[in-house]
């Protein structure tokens, strides 16, 4: 396939920038994330600004990117086809939130925290893989 090497290099570089952003904003620290969710205790609004900063940049830039009609190294955009608010997205996200609040990791920071060499993050990522396999066994749409 054309541009496969360019796509792979792009993925590596964007992954690096993403990981850098998560570490600079301290989102790799579960305590920092849990403090954001702890509205009745030691609330720390930092995570709100991380998301706000990311959304501010992406909201402006995505328009220009999508307006181009085609990505640079790929024939089409792979945007989600689902747009409806259904039970799957609400229940799935609710389950994700419960786990987020217990562990203090969401997928990005969980993977990025592997770099700190913490056993904690390793157990979390192993759990995520298990959850992903469990989903495929139990709840994935057939066909």
């Amino acid at each position, binding site marked *: 396939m054309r541009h496969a090497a360019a*796509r792979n*290099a*792009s*993925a*590596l570089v964007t992954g690096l*920038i*993403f*990981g850098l*952003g998560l*570490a*600079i*904003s301290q989102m790799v620290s579960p*305590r920092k994330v849990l403090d954001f*969710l702890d509205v*009745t*205790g030691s*609330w*720390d609004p930092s995570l709100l600004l*991380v*998301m*706000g*900063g*990311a*959304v501010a*940049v*992406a*909201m402006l*830039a*995505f328009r220009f990117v999508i307006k181009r009609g085609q990505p640079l*190294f790929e024939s*089409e955009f792979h945007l989600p086809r689902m*747009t409806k608010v259904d039970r799957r*997205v*609400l229940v*799935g*996200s609710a*389950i994700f*939130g*419960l786990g*987020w*609040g*217990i562990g*203090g*990791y969401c997928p*990005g920071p*969980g*993977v990025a925290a592997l*770099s*700190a*060499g913490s056993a904690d993050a390793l157990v*979390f*990522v192993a*759990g995520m893989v298990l*959850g*992903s*396999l*469990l*989903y*495929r066994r139990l709840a*994935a749409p057939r066909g």
Partner: protein
Amino acid sequence: MSIAGFYRVRQSGVANFTPVSALIGGALIGISATLLLWLTGRVAGVSGIMHGALLQRRDTWRWLFLAGLVAGAGVWLWLSPPAAPPRAGYPTPLVLLAGVLVGFGTALGGGCTSGHGVCGISRLSVRSIAATISFVLTGMLSVFIVRHLFGLAS
């Protein structure tokens, strides 16, 4: 929870609000998501990239993105080592349970904080906005249960 433990949790909150590094880090995440979409047409949703990597092991770009995530965070932690060591001593079964719920929930819900929370909201997707409200609310609920009802400091 002991008084000392309560004080420690208290201290780690608003007193530790870090608006500047949060905005810089957030902007980098936004730049990363923009570049990935522009260059490869893919959405920078970490859970989606991970589930896809497990399902389609030959999708090299997915593994490279995840490797970059680890390396990028590693570079920063190496340049600027955090004052506090990584968390240790939080009950392992709870961390494992958290991982399973996050893995299962993001697969069912089709995204996480990055895919729905950053990319979806940036495209003003109603589905992603609903997802984000859902996981932030249950996240707050579960922190309330773990920290305040069970008194586990983390």
